[in-house]
């Protein structure tokens, strides 16, 4: 290092940029291929110039990426999917981690969650849509009009039965890549429970309004359903019986978002550590000030804790453990809050340059800030956790 201070070789610093999981060679390949592809196709300089792009990415970026297996891990082998290690969400979290590291665009979360829902339903009627989504030829968007921490009355979408048809009313926002989507997985409440349906975007009665978002390359819309009528074959799962399936989908989404955020935190932290060694003030490197060293130590503890709870969440979900629900919500709440705090602290330590558009840091700040919101804020997940605790102590 030119800064004159001895700095430990990165390799000695523990598992700084390793997930905790021991990776199989296939997993390593999946991760490395994704990393190389993202570095080549969506470098931050390119994303910076394409902020006004209506989709945030070119269609062939998504289809070529899908060919690397991005949307296959949560789909059963019977339905044409499969994961390289057999541990579905763990493999997906490796891809998501690289998405975060590169602040990559594209609806990774929703396409995977919708694909998993279609696969779980085992419904051959959805096979064609599922294949198109897996191949990256169609984009799926998730219209979550009801979330598991909400009361039925708080749902923003209703799905009713009329004869052989389903009739959908209401609206939901934000929906990622709504304008690009070929399919919407719509979740709403019905008499007697929660219902999910797969609706082609071209169906009459659907209106999409583009929304502005703090992320540079991810685009969102508000989707309205005005007496949208689809045949009962659109059902994903049973009418009124999708509550548990939705909870599982939300947990999968939460793990993907957590892994993405951990990747983004890692990138932001790494560039801030480098900055601390390179930036001199009052004749000393920033890294030599104890006031800053202690903040770096705190950030490092948040980062390692985030890695740890994210991996634990992916593991518990992959292994179908009873504690998966608690672990995933803990991860989403912890990383949601501390990912943002870490990124903001990185901005603070960078000083003024940290809030310029030309610097790379804001991409990661945007990523963790938006991920904090999607599929439940820390507050939502903490209330959900509390409900689980109360139930557990009542049972005991």
């Amino acid at each position: 290092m030119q800064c004159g201070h001895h700095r430990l070789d990165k390799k000695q610093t523990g598992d700084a940029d390793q997930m905790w999981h021991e990776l199989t060679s296939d997993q390593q390949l999946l991760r490395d291929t994704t990393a190389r592809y993202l570095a080549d196709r969506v470098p931050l300089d390119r994303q910076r110039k394409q902020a006004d792009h209506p989709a945030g990415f070119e269609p062939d970026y998504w289809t070529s990426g899908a060919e690397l297996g991005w949307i296959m891990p949560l789909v059963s082998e019977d339905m044409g999917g499969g994961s390289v290690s057999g541990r579905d969400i763990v493999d997906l979290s490796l891809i998501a981690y690289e998405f975060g590291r590169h602040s990559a665009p594209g609806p990774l979360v929703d396409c995977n969650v919708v694909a998993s829902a279609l696969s779980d339903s085992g419904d051959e009627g959805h096979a064609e849509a599922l294949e198109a989504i897996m191949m990256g030829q169609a984009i799926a968007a998730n219209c979550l009009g009801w979330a598991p921490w909400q009361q039925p009355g708080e749902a923003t979408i209703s799905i009713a039965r009329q004869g052989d048809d389903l009739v959908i009313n209401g609206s939901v926002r934000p929906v990622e890549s709504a304008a690009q989507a070929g399919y919407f997985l719509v979740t709403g409440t019905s008499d007697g429970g929660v219902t999910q349906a797969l609706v082609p975007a071209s169906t009459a009665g659907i209106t999409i309004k583009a929304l502005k978002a703090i992320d540079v390359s991810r685009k969102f819309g508000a989707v309205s359903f005005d007496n949208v009528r689809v045949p009962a074959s659109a059902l994903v799962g049973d009418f009124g019986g999708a509550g548990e399936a939705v909870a599982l989908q939300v947990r999968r989404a939460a793990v993907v978002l957590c892994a993405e955020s951990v990747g983004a935190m890692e990138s932001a932290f790494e560039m801030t550590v480098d900055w601390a060694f390179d930036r001199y003030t009052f004749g000393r490197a920033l890294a030599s000030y104890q006031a800053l060293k202690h903040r770096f130590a705190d950030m490092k503890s948040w980062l390692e804790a985030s890695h740890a709870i994210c991996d634990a969440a992916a593991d518990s979900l992959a292994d179908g453990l009873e504690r998966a629900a608690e672990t995933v919500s803990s991860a989403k709440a912890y990383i949601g809050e501390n990912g943002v705090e870490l990124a903001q602290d990185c901005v603070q330590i960078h000083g003024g340059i940290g809030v310029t558009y030309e610097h790379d840091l804001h991409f990661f700040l945007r990523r963790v800030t938006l991920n904090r919101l999607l599929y439940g804020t820390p507050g939502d997940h903490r209330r959900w956790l509390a409900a689980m605790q109360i139930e557990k102590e009542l049972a005991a």
Partner: protein
Amino acid sequence: MSTDIEPVEQFRARAREWIKANLGPLQSFDRTQHCKDDEEELVAVARDRALQRKIFDGGFAGICMPKEYGGLGLTPEHNRAFNEELAGHEYPSRFAVPTFNPCASTILEFCTAEQKAAHLPAILKGDEVWVQLLSEPGGGSDVAGITTSAVRDGDHWVLNGSKVWTSRAWWADWGLILARTNWDVPKHQGMTVFLVPLRQEGVEIQRIVRLNGESEACQEYFTDVRIPDSDRVGEVDAGWNIGTRWMFHERMGHNSPYVTYPSGLGMSASREDSPVAIARKSGKIDDPAARELIGEHRELGLVTRALQNRIADAATKANKDMSAIDRLFRGVASVRRSTISFELAGSGASVWDEEEEAATDAVGMNFLMRQISCIGGGTTEISRNVVAERILGMPREASGDKGVPFREVPKGPKRA
């Protein structure tokens, strides 16, 4: 090592039978080590001494201690098997730490055969309770900056100074002490370890009353205490080599192979209610803000455990200093959890009627004591230095004592 060592499973079966026949159920003061007053504490001490003697007479004391010093000369696997069989039973909790570890572990590693013969069998029979005399009032984190001095006088040493934060020294028998024996060399090169009886003239032991009313910790004052040279451990001025191993044993705590205690017993079992129970008592259980706090409390518990697992894995593979991350996180998370419980308890944690069933006074006391989790066993500030310097490779803090004779190291304020 003898080749006719008893197989672990055979030992386990024998241990199970003996434990069932001889030991009663676990007592509440075995779990929390908390007694309501000194009288109860002394009863517990006498019980522990008798219990340790019973285990010795039963042929199960000092499982990993050599046979020549009264132990069984078996392996850590044998000790683990015994601990597993001991689960749910009473045990001499006041001997586990610090008598067996780090005191007996350090004696075994560094003492002469004569010294070991004098003390290890006595410890195993329940006759000697030991404490470690390390920390001083003049400095906590800077262990090597001690100023308690031992000066040679013929075949004796004369000890003067003070040690502090010694748990339960007021009823203990012996202490392992680190003292300064040379002031003209840099700080790490002028210390020596001694064995010192606590019940003798010149040793005054005061109880330290903590703000929550507990007074198990003590401060000891040594005034012209004469120690025979035969109670010196290791070479003169080479005490820091022993001290680093001593502190290594200390960090092992109850996980040391020399400690016998029931498996699965959380050593920091709290008297505090769960957040759900606290919120019920305070009537906040249905308040959404309280629900968020309950969830955060649970979240921090799970994150702490996940991080501990990750670090244990990383530490064995790569970098031992990673444990500083775990220490830092645990301290800070515990502080936050304590604050959450306090918030959930409402006014009942600050002002309560002790005749009411809903009393949540333990929450208030734990809140007042909450910083202990960031102080005890090395402060979080020191952990932050370790993380920044040894893991992130940032420049070390300047120090005033490197390569300087200890006599010349600044030790107090120099204000104009």
